[in-house]
């Protein structure tokens, strides 16, 4: 067949094919259209996809959906960078929303150098494991076992173990995801707004001498903090000082000043804490002997 016919045929054929496909697609689009909001994907792209749950939703995609139907505020994602959240806010035409930064705080100050070790644990190097074996080797059965499950679990590397085997939270980085709260077998972590500056770093329920026999920075329930601070801010429950954060406004440093052990502490904005001046000075650097 001649070249021209061939050209004609092919061009015609293609045109036909193109139109055919187009019609099919048109019909398809009319008949079989299922709408889903494309913004979900777009926002999800803008989220860190850490799926940590710090925002309070199961993961990043549900959070994105929540953002669109307004059940969440962009700033609730504590992992994302500020300006990123800003972009999302503008994109959705909602306001950023701002909630106070929360951080994880450890209710134990009994490092190796001040807390008495009753038995040497030999086995899996995890707090969970140790806690299951007669509660672990530590004299204070409420205290931190210092094997760093929390350090491991923190996806953001906000926790590092110090030389005395106590986890230290870097409040800059902490996103209050709460993983460490869940993982700690002794339930020593609590999530607090940074404005909660007064804090009792102990959970031991014993009192007096037998308490002090176990740890030098233990709360002995001597009640000084409760007496010194404004009415009702602190009261002693089960031999332990408990702060009523409802009255957080009236909290102040005076509460910690006469604490003999330094079990109650005052956090500054940067996240490092101070003990009262009457607190027994700990000069020991090395760990206490076992047994």
């Amino acid at each position, binding site marked *: 067949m001649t070249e021209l016919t061939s050209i004609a045929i092919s061009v015609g054929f293609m045109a036909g094919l193109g139109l055919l496909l187009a019609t099919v697609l048109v019909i398809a689009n009319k008949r079989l259209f299922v709408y889903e909001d494309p913004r979900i994907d777009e926002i999800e792209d803008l989220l860190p996809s850490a799926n940590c749950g710090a925002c309070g939703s199961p993961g990043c995609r549900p959070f994105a959906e929540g953002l669109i139907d307004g059940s969440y505020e962009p700033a609730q994602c504590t992992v994302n960078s500020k300006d990123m959240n800003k972009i999302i806010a503008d994109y959705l035409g909602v306001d950023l929303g701002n909630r106070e930064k929360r951080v994880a705080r450890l209710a134990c100050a009994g490092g190796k150098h001040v807390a008495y070790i*009753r*038995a*040497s*644990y*030999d*086995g*899996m190097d995890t707090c969970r*494991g140790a806690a*299951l*074996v*007669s509660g*672990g*080797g530590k004299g204070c059965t409420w205290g931190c076992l210092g094997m760093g499950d929390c350090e491991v679990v923190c996806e953001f590397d906000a926790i590092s173990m110090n030389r005395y085997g106590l986890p230290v939270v870097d409040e800059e980085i902490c996103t209050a995801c709460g993983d460490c709260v869940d993982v700690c077998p002794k339930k020593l972590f609590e999530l607090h707004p940074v404005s909660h500056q007064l804090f009792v770093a102990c959970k031991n329920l014993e009192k007096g001498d037998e308490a002090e026999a176990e740890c030098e920075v233990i709360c002995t329930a001597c009640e000084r903090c409760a007496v010194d601070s404004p009415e009702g801010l602190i009261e002693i429950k089960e031999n332990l000082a408990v702060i009523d954060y409802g009255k957080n406004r009236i909290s102040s440093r005076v509460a910690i000043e006469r604490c003999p052990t330094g079990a109650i502490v005052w956090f500054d904005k940067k996240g490092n804490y101070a003990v009262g001046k009457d607190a027994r000075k700990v000069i020991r650097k090395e760990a206490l*002997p*076992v*047994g």
Partner: protein
Amino acid sequence: MLKKAPIEIRTSPHLKKALSVEQIMRNVVYALLPICAWSVYQFGISALALILVTTITCILTESFFCWMSDRPNSVKDYSVVITGLLLALTLPPGFPLWMAAVAGFIAIALGKSLFGGLGFNVMNPALIGRAFVQAAFPVAITTWTPSFVPGRFLEFIPSTLAVPFMTPVDTSDWVKEKAIDGFTGATPLALQKFEQVSADTMDLLTGSVAGSAGETSAIIIFICGLYLAFRKMMDWRIPAGVFAGTVLLSLPLYLYNPEIYPSPQFMLFSGGLMLGAMFMASDMVGSPLTPRGIWLYGAFIGVLTVTIRIFGGLNEGVMYAILVANALAPMIDSITQPRIYGERKEEVES
């Protein structure tokens, strides 16, 4: 009282069976030594050199990668020695040493260290090493030399000492000069495949045939395997499964047409099947966990081996069969999870 030492606390159970990994591995090495000795007796210093080279390369590679990925050096657990020995046993006696070294390196690097070392490898390292060189140097790995050559303890097989990365010399004239009567350079399996002549079972058992160092003496291998099985250091179910699978497929074929299809006993005792079943399929790391899975795995290897040998392009299939089975192991496991004590019927369905 008790105050001499501080109290110690441990988790239960406080008793422990004596058997430990390094013990198992050490015994496997013991079980392999007689086989190595026999192959040296058969093929002379070439075999010896081969064994040493592979083993040493494996050890060096292992230590190197442990150092790279700062893991504790895991040479002490002997598993890498096993890898080296088994690798050597699967290679032709005249295999150039430099190629053997390549095989050893690949076996550990690709087969083991890549995945994190002992226990994490998904396929049998030794066989990965062999499969690699078989694909890389198909000619060298299919050129066989006769056993019991006079003066084998004094001189190397010429191809053994090939210059690294260079082609080995052709051994055929060396074989002629050695005047081994009617040695065709073909393994019993090759002969079977291409000329339909089955070697005599007795020869296979005693190993007076061509073949790789470890595949020519079924009887010794079998005995050494039994030793492991009795020491409960190797799972007898795997070799049993392999043998079962082999017979299962080859017997009907044989009965159907004895002319072209080899006999089951030939299938069992020829080639690497015995070594493969006893020492390589039985590598627990690559094999399934569940009881039924283990049987399935063994049988599958047997069947696949026969299939490849009879219908495939290659005349030996054990290696590939085991590798494929390793790859299938996770799936076998997941479909053969054991029914647990007191499991209710409806749970079994769901």
